[in-house]
């Protein structure tokens, strides 16, 4: 016979959840309702589906119990749990953000927003527009001006096989390599491109080469593809 106080939560699609009061109070919204004595019957949560609500409850459970016990559940373990918990697809992540906001669960809101931030920080503007369904209202000239003002922010990072060295190159140079060019144009990649088959030394040589081509192209002389870049292009095509 449990003497622990429970509250009942009802999701938008009618699912019922019985939750311990302490766990439910991780949500400041629910806490307020309980304290105002509005929680005798099931609390309806019309903005949260059953699936998302179950996830939020999982999060609250995990984080309540760790604040009770004398941090034997160490910070590191909790962080590891969080990392695994948040490994969900983007749609669920967005839903979690909105639920955490509506239910006012600060820790979950921080976790979800930070996760999305980490996800998008290397993305290109085109990918961002796709992700947030944003219409580009700049004219091509205006957009070009903004890009020019912030040119260094648009550099593409090429990382070598061990992700030890990162080379920042301008887009024009990176496009010299056919593979990368395709990746960029198909919006297939972020601004950080890992090149698993290429070591730093080779990558340096290739970049030097591309630089020369770009300079040669600008001075309108005949570019000649060197052996190095040809060799590299092949493994990259894998």
């Amino acid at each position, binding site marked *: 016979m449990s003497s622990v106080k429970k509250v009942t939560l009802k999701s938008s699609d009618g699912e019922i959840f019985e939750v311990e009061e302490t766990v439910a109070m991780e949500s400041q919204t629910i806490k307020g309702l309980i304290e105002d004595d509005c929680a005798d019957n099931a609390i309806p949560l019309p903005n949260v589906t059953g699936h998302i609500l179950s996830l939020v409850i999982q999060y609250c459970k995990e984080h309540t119990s760790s604040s009770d016990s004398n941090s034997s559940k160490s910070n590191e373990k909790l962080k590891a749990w969080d990392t695994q918990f948040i490994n969900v697809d983007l749609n669920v992540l967005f839903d979690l953000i909105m639920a955490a906001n509506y239910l006012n669960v600060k820790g979950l809101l921080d976790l979800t927003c930070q996760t999305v931030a980490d996800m*998008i920080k290397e993305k290109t*503007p085109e990918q961002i527009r796709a992700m947030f369904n944003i219409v*580009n209202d700049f004219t091509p000239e205006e957009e070009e001006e903004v*890009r020019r003002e912030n040119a260094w922010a648009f550099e593409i990072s090429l990382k070598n096989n061990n992700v030890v060295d990162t080379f920042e190159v301008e887009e024009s140079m990176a496009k010299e390599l056919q593979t990368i060019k395709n990746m960029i144009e198909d919006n297939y990649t972020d601004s950080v491109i890992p090149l698993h088959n290429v070591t730093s030394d080779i990558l340096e040589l290739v970049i030097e080469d591309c630089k020369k081509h770009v300079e040669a192209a600008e001075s309108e002389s005949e570019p000649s593809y060197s052996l190095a870049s040809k060799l590299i292009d092949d493994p990259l095509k894998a």
Partner: protein
Amino acid sequence: MGRSDLPQEMVEDILSRLPAKSLKRFSCVNKSWSTLFQNPCFIAKHQHLSQKNWSIFVSGADREANKPVLFLHPNFDDVAADDDFDSRGIILESPFLEEAKKYKEFVGSCINGIICLKYYVEHNKIHDFALWNPAIREFKVLPSLPIHFPSNVDYEDVGSAFGYDSNSNDFKVITILSYWNDPGYYVTYNWDPNVIMHTQVEVYTLSTNSWRQVDCDPVSHINFPGRFREIYLNGVYHWSGMAPGIAKDYFVIVSFDMRNEVFGILSMPNLGDILDPAYVWEALAVLGNCVALVVFDYRPTDKIFHIWVMREYGIKESWTKQYVIGPFSGIPHIAGSELQILLLGDKILMVENNGEVILYNLSAQKIKNLRVRGLPSLFRASQIMTVVEVEDFVKAQPDAIAHSAAKIISRLKAGGEKTSNLFVGDVREAALIGVDSLGFDLKAPSEYSAERQLNDLLFPRIHHKPQMMKQTPK
């Protein structure tokens, strides 16, 4: 696949967690995002979150090149044990600092993306100042200090500060001058009880572009700034100072509030019998938004550090000894200012001239020795927190045309009639106020208003009403 149902507040929360480089890249996503990134409220939120990614900003002088040097270090969280750092040093190419001028130092830390430079022009008695905005690569040279002393009075610039008044949205530079009523005094440095030392404080405000004297009576009896590092906390500058006592002199902290330009005095903690004051080395620091003091006895080979924190601002009794750490061996004998100590959240950074850096993690209680190559032989370490992050310093190159702007403009003005004939139409009294790689900027009718607009452009301030911070003077 895209989601447009995420509320704006959430989108802004996510964006405020992004590094500056990402924000710059996303400025072209659409117009409202571009505007958002320049909104002062957003920037304030972003700066707060960015504090997790501090970089150390070590200013110094490259003695051979005689130029200011900026060294930036990565976030020390990422450092593996016993790493050698290759400091990313940037030598500031500043054409406006011509041969005759000798670089001195950076004043304070970076505020809202602006840095204050203090330099010394040969044959001038007193230093000059300039404000530098690396994001848009512009310098502003401050007018010279108006010195009112009669010629037989010796005076000396003993310290400066750089701050920001959040009420009036203004940048301020402070200079502390000491002078004696005996002209020969400073040469001999023999203590003479008949010689009285006076302090005069001048404050420069960007909005008025002028210096004025402020009342320093509350602290005129105190000898400051002392040799410890100064700190800037919550809009208040703090220096250590020496106050005359009945039996003997004692250390105090002198504070200056940037907003109301008022001096104050804070007491140091009672160090008691633990440390012999004669052999104690102290440094002011900031720990958890409180004034802190790092103290140690420098005689033993193995040093023990005491860290005191003033938990309640201004209350002497609230000084608490928060940490005792050490003993650390291998810190060579330190004399005065050669060791610099920074507190960054839960880490203590001890930086020595020769490149030795000791990193102590207070919560993990772990110590790391790092070696930083390339530090200049004379430097001062301070923190930097800014929305315009490390990359902007690395990439910042002075705009050659912008620096020649003054000369170009004056030459055109000297051209007189010939140049004004170029301006057709109704434009009278057109003033050429700007030159950059995009062309010439004209503004009519008033040069004063043009100057003010340029000022606002160069030195963005946080206004109460949200506005675009960049204005184009057209």
